[in-house]
């Protein structure tokens, strides 16, 4: 398809590099350097999408990221499809596939447009006032309808095929924005030799200078000056990031930057990330983010072909794309006159410049008149015609009394408007800097800084090019010197071919039409009109935040970049309060939308969270063991034999372990070495038990409480020497316990000479459990008398196992004769293998965490986090014996004395035996005292652990029951959805109550 609106000459496009692309299935051609918007405009396309609420036809409004209307979905396949992209910032590449949004069946004929006909019944907030009857219709009819009408693009349906990376950077000076102010600032900062980073959201630096074809700086055309300056900056080592948006200003001068790395390539290099999220810590920041042109709020100001004046100038000068053949310009600001001159120079017919101001003056105005362009002062556009493209603009002379005279229709195919400029203070405001309303500029500008930053140029309310450059340079100098004081720039930039611009308008444009019959749009995308805002104020919403939320003005994907100030103007007029009194809605991050994936970065799949594997992990893999996630650890769950399911495997593992011997990988248990002259004294404070008298070589089960008296952790602790304890913790609890210990050691007991070292990963632990355990390890252990007398239950010895240094514990979490062999982790796999081989003679059986859980439950050993839930005291779970009553103090002791901790009806650990031995209770099931109950039932406890016990050949369960220990022998009831299960309360030890099997 040809490009009828492509200007013959000029522009920064490479006409030697044509690019083919499609929009809604139709084929077009653009050039390298084009955006999707400029290429379509060159192709004569202005109908780009449908608005959010009324589905009105919409075209381009801007040439930048502030675009509210021309949103498209881009991507040939769902795994690379992105909705809601702004056409003016989508760089063209060959083969690009774009489609319009929010229309059905087609963009030209959109069924949703019926809303526009009924718009009078859909004022702001209409949905709060209706859809309430009949009640059931909300969920079934109204809401689904509202939802299907809302939304813009379609979310992709396939997983994203691209990758994203994140990187931290540190610079002395970060300059945001590479327009004239930013370039000058970077120059100044670079000359000081500091580390400087310059970031700009556009593909090339230069900002507004890229479409200024008349200005000269230091005697050179603006574009040439930009090129030379860029070269100078790079020569000085400035890091220049293009296609990089500073989207967020976070505390302590941390800025978030999003670099778009590959979206502009037809065939991206797969090793490159699609986007790179920079987290930049800057010593000093220069904000040079420019300004945004405001639309004029006149009736029917939203038709395709109605654009901002400077956008039209940019399309013509930068991309050689003409927005029309015959344009009308409506303005309240001088800058539109530059557009008039430039378009005329391109041979475009400028029918008339209608200026709201009664008496526009100045060199630009004179130049336009001199160019023979008709200028109408004190004149407004009071209406337009044209369904899918503006055809006619109605120009009316203002009567000076808030109304307008009869309109003069002027034919045109483009209507360009300018309501003046709004400084882009988003990042400044995010930094918590204080804004002030400048009456002269009729704009909010930066006032008091909070972070180490300063604004320069347009975002600082400075608009004259020479002043902008000087302002930027001064800002760069002050940043380099890390000072708040802005000395006058030590360097001036002589400029020519440009003129200062003044003027602007906030709020609605006067007209004499029936206000309730016309739509003058403020927020284009969300279809918020001047009358919606007035309605909101009539309904008593006076805070601008209320108005915003009620009308949704400023809440669209452009976040009010083009609409907020006009909305303020209208509200200010409506409630007769000056703008500064109304305030401003908060600027929230991000400045423009940021891809979820870039926040996630590499954190996906196996990198989402570390996968911690024990040294014998591969053994379990070879045996086909499924793994259980416990914290970050992977633990072998059971070791199935061919044809075995979980139940069969676990049953076999427990039986084998009890009848002969089993082996279990206990490496994940947390381990902390507590060393120092005061080690015992420290242990006395951190654990409820007594430690001072524990003999060297002996072990003890320790209970750790939080200061509030609830059980925090437990584990077996061995004393290796007078001043050395080997502490074990639960697998998940290790980091928490170490931090808890360090906390008390450093802040409460700093006088104690003792130190804590995590040794969880130093030692691989093979637990060998069962009557034959001693026989199995005997062959592997050097120089240790393993007899019960020499190495009784609950003792520890340092020795060599399989020729490597080891800590051999005689401990049991199964109730059987048991050992835990600790060896340095790199030897873990070999020692595990050696034990496995040595055990073959006894049919040694590796067992997983499930069998371990069953075995310990048969013995009534609790698991912190399963029997306890943070509301259980030590006595509740039957650990009263482990509390050193005689001890003067330990962490949590005083809290245990609180009334509720001793209450008779506290939940206590008990065992449960179901009347039907075949019935296995469900963990988490609730317990009632009376099988007959009404909902809500009075619950007296819950099942914490429940298994089929291979050893007892019946089901067993542990439970926390109110006053449980007083209920021994009672029958309690477990209501399930389909039935009520009866069970007898018994002691929580089901096997070998006297513990005979542990000894001998």
């Amino acid at each position, binding site marked *: 398809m040809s490009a009828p609106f492509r200007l013959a000459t000029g522009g920064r496009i490479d006409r030697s590099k044509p690019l083919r692309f499609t929009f809604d299935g139709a084929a077009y051609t653009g050039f390298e350097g084009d955006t999707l918007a400029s290429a379509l405009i060159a192709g004569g396309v202005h109908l780009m999408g449908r608005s959010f609420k009324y589905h009105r036809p919409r075209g381009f409004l801007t040439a930048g990221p502030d675009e509210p209307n021309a949103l498209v979905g881009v991507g040939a396949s769902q795994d690379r499809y992105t909705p809601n992209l702004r056409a003016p910032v989508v760089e063209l590449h060959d083969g690009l596939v774009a489609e319009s949004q929010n229309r059905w069946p087609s963009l030209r004929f959109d069924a949703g447009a019926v809303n526009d006909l009924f718009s009078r019944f859909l004022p702001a907030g209409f949905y709060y*006032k209706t*859809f309430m009857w009949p009640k059931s219709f909300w969920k079934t009819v109204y809401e689904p309808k509202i939802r299907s009408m809302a939304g813009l693009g379609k979310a992709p349906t396939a997983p994203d095929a691209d990758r994203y990376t994140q990187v931290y950077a540190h610079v002395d000076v970060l300059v945001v924005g590479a327009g004239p102010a930013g370039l000058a600032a970077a120059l100044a900062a670079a000359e000081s030799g500091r580390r400087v980073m310059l970031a700009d959201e556009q593909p090339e630096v230069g900002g507004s200078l890229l479409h200024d074809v008349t200005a000269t700086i230091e005697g050179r055309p603006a574009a040439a000056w930009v090129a030379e300056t860029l070269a100078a900056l790079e020569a000085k080592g400035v890091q220049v990031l293009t296609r990089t948006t500073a989207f967020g200003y976070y*505390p302590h001068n941390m800025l978030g930057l999003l670099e778009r790395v590959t979206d502009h390539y037809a065939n991206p290099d797969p090793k490159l990330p699609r986007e790179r999220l920079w987290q930049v810590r800057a010593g000093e920041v220069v904000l040079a983010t420019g300004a945004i042109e405001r639309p004029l709020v006149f009736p029917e100001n939203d038709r395709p072909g109605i654009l901002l004046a400077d956008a039209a100038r940019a399309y013509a000068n930068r991309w050689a794309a003409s927005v029309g053949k015959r344009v009308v310009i409506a303005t309240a600001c001088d800058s539109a006159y530059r557009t008039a001159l430039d378009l005329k120079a391109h041979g475009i017919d400028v029918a008339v410049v209608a200026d709201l101001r009664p008496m526009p003056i100045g060199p630009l105005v004179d130049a336009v008149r001199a160019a023979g362009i008709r200028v109408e002062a004190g004149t407004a556009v009071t209406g337009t015609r044209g369904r899918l493209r503006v055809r006619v603009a109605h120009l009316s002379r203002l009567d000076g009394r808030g109304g307008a005279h009869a309109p003069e229709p002027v034919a045109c195919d483009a209507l360009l408007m300018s309501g003046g400029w709004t400084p882009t203070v988003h990042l400044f405001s995010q930094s918590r800097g204080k804004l002030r309303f400048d009456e002269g500029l009729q704009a909010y500008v930066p006032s008091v800084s909070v972070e180490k930053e300063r604004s320069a140029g347009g975002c600082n309310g400075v608009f004259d090019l020479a002043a902008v450059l000087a302002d930027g340079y001064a800002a760069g100098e002050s940043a380099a010197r890390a000072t708040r004081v802005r000395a006058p720039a030590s360097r001036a930039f002589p400029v020519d071919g440009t003129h200062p611009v003044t003027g602007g308008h906030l709020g609605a444009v006067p007209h004499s039409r029936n206000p309730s019959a016309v739509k003058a749009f403020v927020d284009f995308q969300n279809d918020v009109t001047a009358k919606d805002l007035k309605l909101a104020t009539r309904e008593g919403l006076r805070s601008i935040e209320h108005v915003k*939320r009620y009308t949704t003005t400023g809440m669209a994907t452009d976040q009010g970049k083009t609409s907020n100030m006009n909305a303020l103007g209208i509200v200010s007029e409506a409630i007769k309060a000056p703008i500064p009194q109304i305030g401003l809605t908060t600027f929230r991050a991000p400045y423009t*939308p940021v891809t979820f994936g870039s926040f996630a970065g590499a954190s996906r799949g196996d990198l*989402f969270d570390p996968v911690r594997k024990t040294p014998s992990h591969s053994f379990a893999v070879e045996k086909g063991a499924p793994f259980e996630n416990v914290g970050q650890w992977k633990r072998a769950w059971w070791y199935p034999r061919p044809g075995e399911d979980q139940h069969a495997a676990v049953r076999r593992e427990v039986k084998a372990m009890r009848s002969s011997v089993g082996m279990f990988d206990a490496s994940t248990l947390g381990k902390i070495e507590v060393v120092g002259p005061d080690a015992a004294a420290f242990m006395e404070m951190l654990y409820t038990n007594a430690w001072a008298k524990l003999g060297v070589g002996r072990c003890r089960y320790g209970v750790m409480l939080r200061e509030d008296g609830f059980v925090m952790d437990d584990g077996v602790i061995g004393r290796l020497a007078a001043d050395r304890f080997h502490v074990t913790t639960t697998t998940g609890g290790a980091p928490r316990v170490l931090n808890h210990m360090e906390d008390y050691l450093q802040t409460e007991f700093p006088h104690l000479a003792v130190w804590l070292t995590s040794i969880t990963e130093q030692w691989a632990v093979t637990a060998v459990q069962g009557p034959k355990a001693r026989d199995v390890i005997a062959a592997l252990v050097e120089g240790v008398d393993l007899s019960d007398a020499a190495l009784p239950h609950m003792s520890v010895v340092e020795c060599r196992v399989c020729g490597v240094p080891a800590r051999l514990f005689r401990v049991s979490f199964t109730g059987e004769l048991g050992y835990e062999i600790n060896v340095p982790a790199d030897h873990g796999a070999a020692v595990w293998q050696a034990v496995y081989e040595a055990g073959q003679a006894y049919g040694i059986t590796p067992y997983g965490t499930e069998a371990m859980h069953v075995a310990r439950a048969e013995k009534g050993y609790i698991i912190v986090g399963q029997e306890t839930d*943070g509301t259980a005291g030590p006595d509740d779970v039957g650990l009263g014996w482990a509390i050193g009553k005689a001890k003067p103090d330990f962490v949590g002791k005083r809290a245990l004395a609180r009334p509720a901790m001793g209450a008779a009806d506290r939940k206590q650990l008990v065992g449960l035996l179901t009347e039907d031995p075949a019935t296995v209770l469900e963990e*988490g*099931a609730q317990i009632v005292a009376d099988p007959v109950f009404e909902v809500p039932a009075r619950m007296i406890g819950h099942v914490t652990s429940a298994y089929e016990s291979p050893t007892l050949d019946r089901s067993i369960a542990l439970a926390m029951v109110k006053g449980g220990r007083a209920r021994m022998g009672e029958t309690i009831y477990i209501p399930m959805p389909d039935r009520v299960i009866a069970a007898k309360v018994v002691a929580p030890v089901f096997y070998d109550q006297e513990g005979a099997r542990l000894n001998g």
Partner: protein
Amino acid sequence: MQTYSALQLLRRAFGGHQSWEPLWRQPALKPAYDVVIIGGGGHGLATAYYLAKEHGITNVAVLEKGWIGGGNTGRNTTIIRSNYLFDESAALYDHAVKLWDDLSQALNYNVMYSARGVMMLAHTVHDVQSAKRHIHANRLNGVDNEWLDPEACKAFCPELNISDNIRYPIMGGALQRRGGTARHDAVAWGYARAADAMGVDIIQNCEVTAIRRDATGAIEAVETTKGTVKTRKVGVVAAGHTSVVMSMADVRMPLESYPLQALVSEPVKPTFTCVVMSNTIHAYISQSDKGELVIGAGTDAYTSYSQRGALHITEHTLDAICELFPMFRRMRMLRNWGGIVDVTPDRSPILSKTAVPGLFVNCGWGTGGFKATPGSGNVFAHTIATGEPHRINAPFTLDRFRDGTLIDEAAAAAVAH
């Protein structure tokens, strides 16, 4: 009160919508009130509404430092559910859910309560045990909550990634079908409009500067930026600022105020029909009526009143979302904001009288206050009106921290949202 209905909308449309009355008056602060509510958020406005509606106490002022609904009410992710573990919590939150059900009709204001179903995912054996414990307890408390295996989770939420090749594969989920969302602003505005219609004065831009007590120590007046108000009863419903307000009456609170972030994506056509929460990998998500994906997570790490969060918290939230919903990886964050949530040691709220006669406090909702708004206001109004707690909020006293009778939802389930 001007009735809202389709018919009214139609009628007034022909009048160019000129004749809609203000949602509420802009009254001047009177010198004295029977009850002063400090805090014009959802809970405070609901309290005022129920004081007037159910207890006939209409001489009430709601004092709001800024604009009503501008705190956590207008900043939260609007999740509504009642499948809490302990009887006390379940009763409180389910009381709220019952009121949510016809709140729009009661207020004649569409708060858009939408029972889309809230699914809480389990990723570990411990999650499963905890979820099952909740489900059993909920069933016996008459609260709906059902267990779904991974395939059923996928059927309920087709976007969900239930494959084994994610770091923490989904082992199932607990679904409360009555759970859902509502329109947060509408809740504040609906309660305000209805309370105002019954005579309650809603005073915005009115900051409380002091709470005065008489010789006996009882409440006698409240000083504000708009003057002094005499009153014998003050209800503090200031969410994140509760500690600050209570300190004016020399009452120390078991509270810490943390930043809580939330974010929304750009609006898209309906793609996500339910609410999904994962406490193990810390994220929750739903889609608003506007089409935005509404996403939240746990609190930031340190106490703050700055109302903004850290970038790395957003990262953790979104990496979790992208892991569960890989097709949303290309969606884009449109808006990110922070609220201030007041957190108690046991993660359960406080709805209680205090040692100061006439001073009542409603706080400590942490990250989950929005869902309780109607129930909270309802029982707190009872407490203020009668001077004694309603059966439902009786356990949620300040004294429980002294006695050790905590209601530790967090410890019991690691559920904080």
